[in-house]
């Protein structure tokens, strides 16, 4: 006999993500899901970003990593609350799922927090598929990676709301063609803002910070 279902395979995660979204809305906290391949510079960007947001915007961070607490150790030094998720404990996953983010968020006091940043596991494939209840998604691409990354991982660049092109201080030493990567990003997501910056020199940070502050502001009055 045939049993009709028409059910989303990820419906359990999607439902949990919606509950997260409702919870974060009640807390009036903007949740930012930051994704990239390993080594694109997410943690370095966050260190500099948090420094520029404080004390105006109270921030907290959830860090997802397969192993080690290295990223959390670095971010704790900025003075904001940090919760580390080692996905190893959840079966060595390649992404953060909604229930994992929910558990981590319950370890934070979000009452006076305006921005919760979730640093996802370094991976351009799986995190794009899993809703965690975030408001905005950011993808970081560094100029030491190929210009064709957006074409190889179209879903990631399609689902994100902004892209950060990191390590621009290295451009003079590389064969990386910036115009090609920008063209490739625009093919996938024509309207997406792209911020060119360097986490090392902090060049280009002001536009990114302004955009982020504006998103936090929008959420406050939602």
């Amino acid at each position: 006999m045939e049993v009709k279902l028409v059910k989303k395979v990820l419906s359990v995660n999607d439902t949990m993500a919606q509950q997260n979204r409702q919870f974060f809305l009640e807390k009036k906290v903007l949740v930012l899901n930051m994704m990239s391949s390993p080594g694109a510079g997410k943690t370095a960007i966050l260190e500099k970003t948090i420094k520029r947001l404080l004390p105006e915007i109270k921030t907290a961070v959830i860090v997802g990593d397969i192993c080690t607490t290295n990223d959390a150790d670095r971010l704790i030094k900025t003075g904001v609350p940090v919760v580390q998720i080692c996905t190893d404990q959840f079966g060595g996953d390649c992404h953060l799922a909604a229930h994992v983010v929910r558990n981590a968020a319950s370890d934070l006091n979000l009452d006076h927090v305006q921005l919760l940043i979730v640093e996802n596991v370094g991976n351009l494939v799986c995190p794009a598929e899993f809703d965690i209840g975030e408001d905005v998604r950011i993808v970081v691409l560094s100029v030491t990676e190929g210009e064709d990354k957006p074409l190889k991982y179209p879903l990631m660049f399609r689902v994100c709301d902004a892209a950060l092109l990191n390590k621009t201080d290295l451009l003079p030493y590389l064969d990386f063609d910036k115009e090609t990567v920008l063209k490739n990003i625009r093919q996938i997501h024509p309207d997406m803002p792209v911020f060119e910056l360097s986490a090392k020199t902090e060049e280009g940070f002001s536009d990114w910070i302004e955009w982020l502050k504006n998103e936090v502001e929008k959420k406050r009055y939602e």
Partner: protein
Amino acid sequence: MHEMGIAMEIIKIVTDSIPKHLKNPKVEKINLKVGKLAAVVPESLRFCFEVVSQNTPAEGALLHIEEIPVNAMCQSCSYSWTAIEPVFICEKCNSGSVDLLTGRELDIVSIEVEEDG
């Protein structure tokens, strides 16, 4: 890369959907829709499914995967097309405001289940 987790979700949904009155149910076939843009590799999913379905009513079931193309529609001129490549700019009016109508599916459509001897 997360096909194992997806295979486990499929087994759970399928097992929960087997009509209770069946004795020794055996799932013969699972019909899935997977969008071309979904981050799922059908071959990996089949492999993982084979592993995690062992000793469940879905062991040995055929995974029938219908791949769904990426259909896009322009918000500006309403032109719609099937995207062969990941280029989401309107072919007609060059607008970048494009909706993706299909291509992200990851759905179980139906299962075929029988009583085992």
